[in-house]
């Protein structure tokens, strides 16, 4: 390319830069908040937290009780609050959330917040393959794009161009099934199966037998559930 060709390009690059700056300005002023409410309403959980809170409890669905016969139906975070009556504790509960989500939310905390302690719940179950590759992950990740530590227009660009962990339910299923094979069991004693898939295959053929040698359906389902939830 000739010299004036490069000048030509430089002029256009400057024009493009100015255009992007203008769009960024327009976006921040007129559209960003609407997009936050539309695509990342999770931000409201942080915004609702009072600045004078001393402790923040970051929780997922385990913070709530799902059992109808529980005598006390308060959240776990409420119980913790009972231990520290002199401190102000608020919970930030988002079902299906995990450490990755909490990290983004913590970044959104205002600087003037007086929070000194953050309690993060990490349930053992949330480390299993089915949870890591949950079909809910796509929508969760989509919700976090606008909250990334970038200028708003960059985040909207990333959202428009689907720059997040976007997978179909079938792809997620394939992923957790693959992880079931990758994650080997580590037992302190001899165990006849190497991983969840092997266990699952074996169970589908034999099942857990009761004393009379018949398949105990309830026990089988429970055992399979536990192996899949914690066998990693």
């Amino acid at each position: 390319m000739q010299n004036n060709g490069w000048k030509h390009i430089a002029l256009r690059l400057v024009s493009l830069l100015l255009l992007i700056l203008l769009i960024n300005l327009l976006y921040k002023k007129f559209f960003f908040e609407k997009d936050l409410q539309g695509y990342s309403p999770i931000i409201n959980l942080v915004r609702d937290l009072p600045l004078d809170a001393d402790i923040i409890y970051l929780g997922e669905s385990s913070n709530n009780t799902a059992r109808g016969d529980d005598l006390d139906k308060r959240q776990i975070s409420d119980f913790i609050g009972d231990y520290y009556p002199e401190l102000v504790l608020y919970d930030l509960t988002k079902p299906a959330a995990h450490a990755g989500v909490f990290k983004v939310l913590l970044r959104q905390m205002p600087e003037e917040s007086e929070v000194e302690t953050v309690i993060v719940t990490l349930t053992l179950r949330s480390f299993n393959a089915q949870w890591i590759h949950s079909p809910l992950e796509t929508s969760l990740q989509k919700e976090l794009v606008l909250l990334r530590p970038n200028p708003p227009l960059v985040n909207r660009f990333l959202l428009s161009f689907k720059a997040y962990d976007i997978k179909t339910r079938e792809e997620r299923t394939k992923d957790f099934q693959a992880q079931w094979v990758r994650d080997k069991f580590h037992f302190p004693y001899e165990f006849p199966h190497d991983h969840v898939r092997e266990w699952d295959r074996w169970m589908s053929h034999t099942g857990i037998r009761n004393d009379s040698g018949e398949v105990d359906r309830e026990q089988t389902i429970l055992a399979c559930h536990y192996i899949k939830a914690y066998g990693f």
Partner: protein
Amino acid sequence: MLFNTIDFAIFLPVVVLIYYLIPHKYRWILLLAASYFFYMSWKVEYILLIVASTLVDYVSGIRMERLPDRRSRLPWLVLSLSINLGLLFFFKYYNFATENLNLLFQKAGLPTEVPVMKVLLPVGISFYTFQTLSYAIEVYFGNQKAEKHLGYFALYVSFFPQLVAGPIERYSRLAPQFRKAQVLNYDNLSRGLRLILYGLFIKMVIADNISGFVDQVYATPGHFASLDILKGICLYSFQIYSDFYGYSTIAIGSALLLGIRIMDNFKSPYLAKNISEFWQRWHISLSTWFRDYLYFPLGGNRVSKRRWLMNILLVFLISGLWHGANWTFLIWGFLFGLLYILERIVNGALNLQKEHSAYSAGHLLLALKTFLLVTILWIFFRSQSFEDAMNMFQLLFRNSPAEVQSLLIPVSTWIFLLVFIISDLILYNRRFDTWIAGMPYPVRWGVYGILLLGIIVFAGVENFPFIYFQF
């Protein structure tokens, strides 16, 4: 890897950059590797199908060229057609055929049942199969010299910008461009980028913002009032157009960045004055493929009137079937054929072949007629079954039930749709890159601003793959 994703936004510039940095003799390797990588991002295994198709046609082509006449070349052509169409049949039509066969057996009271298989349709199989077939047919007729370089041939079959949804290119147009030492050219770069920008706009801002509403109406039409159903039906016409036109425009733009010119696939089809013209403006690469490799070999219009009618119907039926393995596509194709014939007869009898100047009242009225006819036929195309399509027609003319869902379409979607319609009117018989190049600097950058604003700020955020990927 979809064109409207961050993956492609990284992939394309990297390929373009390396392409111009390396010597010409290695570029085919880069493009072939990039194309295979692009295709494997969907499903790694299906690359084997492309490789198989490539090898079959490469060998068939060379063998055919060595033989003196068509008669002796025929077995190689048959081999190429059988393997390519066989693969297409297996992956695309096998289950459709067996389901209908089983239904037939059931009706006849026969206990036989042909097993249905769980196969996933490989992305773009209809496109690259037709592309390789055109090569084999041309070599058979002696119109095309066989390609001796396997790499260039493999690149022709798999060139990533047009691999998964066309435009379906001819060997004689595409291959010489791969062999030419392309130099970094400002004109190609700016034209390519303009086309990509415009293509992204119509896919991401028009098609993706409409898709959700169309899906709602077609999923549960009974929940909507007639007017909303009508809205949904009309919006689908714009959705499928902007989706496919957007894809093709990005494909053409991406190839242009590499100095490769791909044929246009759309020319304002909804401004066509009749069905015949519509097909000269819609999915041009497929229409011309059917014209050259099916309609003409059948005799075209140089046959008896009855035979001509049959030829037209057959071409449209097969075109319908090409789109998908469902009776709805066959009906859609058949009805298009019928309309085409009817229009020709009526226009001939009433001497309505008058020329209307562009944008005249006559032109716009005829375009509206074409749009409405095509929109009605899209109902069959979009519906899951014939019954669903008929249900849509019935619901269009019923009294709305007391409790209906409302189709709440944001004002911004209507505004951008209007922008799209206006731009299509402006671009009648022109391409965006050519039109914008002739505009004064402030207008040009104003348009870029609107397109960029639309793409970044108003793009639909749901992931709607390109409609034609399923074909």
